[in-house]
């Protein structure tokens, strides 16, 4: 602006109305905003009773089937979009045929599966044993670094062979008595799927197919017309996500959603919720390598200091059960004879005192690490545990961490120079066999274990080689032995999930619901569709 006197009258008019300019911009914003908001209003037409509306806690990072052991992915993908060969009945632990009609152990290292015929993928391609072989190969043997690979197979390599369109053989490196269970985690995709990169939107044989995924907004599914099994009740389904439990509950109460996952008892209307055991167990993992936690009296004292009933009633809405071991009832190897450590403050205090008298530095500060959002009321539970531990004479501080930080504490290599750590963990045994727990949490060099004993390692290895009743008994023994002589864990509770369910729909959640929500099992509450 060089001249002090503007040379043209127009310019003055142009700049004389910043308010007007502001208004114009605002109007433009408003209209464009409405345009965005309305862009999928057609799809949103949801209250018609023909779309099943599900609200999740977070948006799935991907829908790649080989990542479906990630809870956020699996809850959408598994048994809705894609299906495995075999599925595990969550309550009994029994294996049911799905895309495989039968299976048998044909040689010590080989299993043979009979493949269902007459099944087609959502893209119209027929499903054969070759697709099954391809899918297993892709998930387990490829360079995709699939989550399911690490989760159920470790570094084991499988040899897969489609003998005929209806017959598949899988050969393991060493005898694997629970291979069918492991394979229940592998979702089947057509052989045309990329092996170079993970897919964002998968194609499967499931009852629903993905019609659209609006990033950040919603995922829409439509009924698969060619589905081989019973057609699901709802022609369409839509997933949205809200991270706040109160908002999810409000959506159910308001009728904006039919199903909401992971509600918490404080904000949910009890009329619209169903509690179910979710196979998760919370416990404090005590780092036995650091004083004062290296003294078993201190570890046992912590077990006795925890007021499980108080915590469950006051903080968990009475939904959980006191725990005495890392696996809940129903999992192979659960020890029915173990009772939760008694809540005895005086005795616990005496134990700590005894240890202190023996020179254990009980006043060294213990860090209680917990993860934000692990379950509803986590910070209150952490505070209660801190208080209860402090009450028996220990010095405890709380560190609330995010997932990444918590993982650093949880996984080997464990962080150094952080002093004694009591890590609040929540373990979910999705597979239903204690072997998945012991190999991670109890073996002395287990990825999520801080220490152990040779004897315990030996017992675990022995149990893992067994099958049937003997296996159950051996693992039960392992769990009892750990409580008695190792005491790495101070258990809190076997948790139960809370599912929001609108009165309009009928659905019975089971222990697998958090990882795998079968939309085909959901129906309208009353007979007769509106």
């Amino acid at each position, binding site marked *: 602006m060089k001249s*002090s*006197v*503007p040379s043209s*009258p127009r310019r*003055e008019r142009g700049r004389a109305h910043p308010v007007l300019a502001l208004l114009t911009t605002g109007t433009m914003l408003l209209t464009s905003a409405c345009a965005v908001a309305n862009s999928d209003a057609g799809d949103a037409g949801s209250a018609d009773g023909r779309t099943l509306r599900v609200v999740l806690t977070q948006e799935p990072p991907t829908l790649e089937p080989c990542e479906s052991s990630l809870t956020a992915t699996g809850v959408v993908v598994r048994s809705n979009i894609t299906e495995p060969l075999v599925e595990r009945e969550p309550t009994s632990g029994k294996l049911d045929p799905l895309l495989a009609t039968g299976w048998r152990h044909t040689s010590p290292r080989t299993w043979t599966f009979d493949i269902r015929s007459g099944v087609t993928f959502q893209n119209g391609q027929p499903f054969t044993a070759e697709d099954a072989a391809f899918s297993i190969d892709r998930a387990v043997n490829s360079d995709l670094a699939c989550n399911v690979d690490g989760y159920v197979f470790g570094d084991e390599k499988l040899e897969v062979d489609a003998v005929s369109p209806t017959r598949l053989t899988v050969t393991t490196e060493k005898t694997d008595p629970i291979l069918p269970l492991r394979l229940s985690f592998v979702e089947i995709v057509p052989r045309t799927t990329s092996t170079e990169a993970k897919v964002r939107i998968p194609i499967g044989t499931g009852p629903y197919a993905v019609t659209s995924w609006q990033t950040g907004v919603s995922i829409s599914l439509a009924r698969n017309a060619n589905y081989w099994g019973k057609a699901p009740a709802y022609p369409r389904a839509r997933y949205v996500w809200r991270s706040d439990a109160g908002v999810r509950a409000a959506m159910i109460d308001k009728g904006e959603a039919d199903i909401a996952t992971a509600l918490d008892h404080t904000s949910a209307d009890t009329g619209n919720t169903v509690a179910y055991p979710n196979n998760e167990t919370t416990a404090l993992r005590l780092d036995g390598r650091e004083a004062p936690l290296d003294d078993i009296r201190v570890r046992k004292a912590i077990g006795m200091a925890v007021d499980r009933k108080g915590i469950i009633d006051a903080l968990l809405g009475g939904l959980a059960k006191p725990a005495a071991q890392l696996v809940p009832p129903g999992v192979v190897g659960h020890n029915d004879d173990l009772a939760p450590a008694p809540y005895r403050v005086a005795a616990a205090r005496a134990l700590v005192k005894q240890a202190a008298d023996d020179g254990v530095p009980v006043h060294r500060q213990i860090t209680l690490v917990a993860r934000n959002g692990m379950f509803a009321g986590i910070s209150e539970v952490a505070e209660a545990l801190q208080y209860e531990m402090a009450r028996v004479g220990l010095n405890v501080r709380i560190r609330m961490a995010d997932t990444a930080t918590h993982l650093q504490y949880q996984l080997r290599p464990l962080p150094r120079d952080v002093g004694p750590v009591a890590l609040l963990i929540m373990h979910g045994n999705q597979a239903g066999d204690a072997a998945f727990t012991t190999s991670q949490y109890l073996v002395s060099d287990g990825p999520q274990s801080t220490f152990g004993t040779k004897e315990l390692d030996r017992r675990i290895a022995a149990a893992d080689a067994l099958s049937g009743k003997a296996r159950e008994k051996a693992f039960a023994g392992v769990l009892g032995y750990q409580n008695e002589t190792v005491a790495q864990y101070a258990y809190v509770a076997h948790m139960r999930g809370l599912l929001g369910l609108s009165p309009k729909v009928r659905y019975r959640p089971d222990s697998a619901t958090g990882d795998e929500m079968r939309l085909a099992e959901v129906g309208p509450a009353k007979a007769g569709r509106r």
Partner: protein
Amino acid sequence: MTPSTLPAPAGTGHPALEVEGLCVDLRTPSGTVRAVNGVGFQVRKGRTLALLGESGCGKSMTALSIAGLLDPTAEVTGGSVKVSGTDVLRLGRSGRRKLAGPVLSIVFQDALTALNPVQPVGRQLAEPFRIHRGMSRRAAREKAVELMTRVGIPEPRLRARAYPHQFSGGMRQRLLIAMAVALDPDVLIADEPTTALDVTVQAQIMRLLRDLQTERDMALVLITHDLAVVAQRADDVVVMYAGNVVETGPVAEVFSRPRHPYTKGLLDSVPEHAVRGRPLPAVPGSPPELSAVPAGCVFQARCPLAQERCAQERPRLTSVGASRSAACHFSEELDRA
């Protein structure tokens, strides 16, 4: 009738501005004080009245209360202000607004702050026409340019688009005057219109004011502390001290024969009255704080004639000749001296 009212000069109809017994209270952190106490005067069309006094004597406050522009801390508590016969103090807000501009107008002293810094001056000059005449933007702008020409702004059409900070002090004062006379008001109050200006410019502005007054036959109230200006420009003068009128009358008479010691003191302090070789006489002391005005005569503390009576009884403004009055117990003595 309050004694403060001047006897109306012979003539027909109402005076253009007639103020009677005007009282203004001012709230300060330490309490309420009376800033203007029973002030009265009148002006006819074509005549100029000067309100003379030291700063803080209440003359500006008087002007603001006539124009209805007092700050919220000040409040008119008595008296009447008649403009062309209507008592504006009894009017409602919108009634008052109708008069502001076409009937009664005011020129402020600091032209820089009195002009809106973010509006082109042309628009500010056009505003009276837009408000009172309902003119279109374009017609009002033409009028503004005319006005600018009249008050002597060079290149008015171009300069109408400029902003106040782009003008010199004298030009700004011209603009302000132009704005005030835009609608040919009956009464124009000029509140120290030349204080902030150079001496040469002062003369130009005063000349402009006089010309406009003659041209438009306005009653002019000139508020000033400058005796020379009063002597040259005004017909009548009202001398104020600490919120009170101490002397009024035609300028020539008052200045030649002051009947109040304060007026006399003021006149003596002007260099041209001084005698070479003698120290310049000044009115000793300073005016009282408004919160500590004494009970008797307001001027007693500085008055060379003060006596016991002055501390007890406040002198009324009494007639001391044809169309003259003064508020002093000893005005006769002063005249004789």
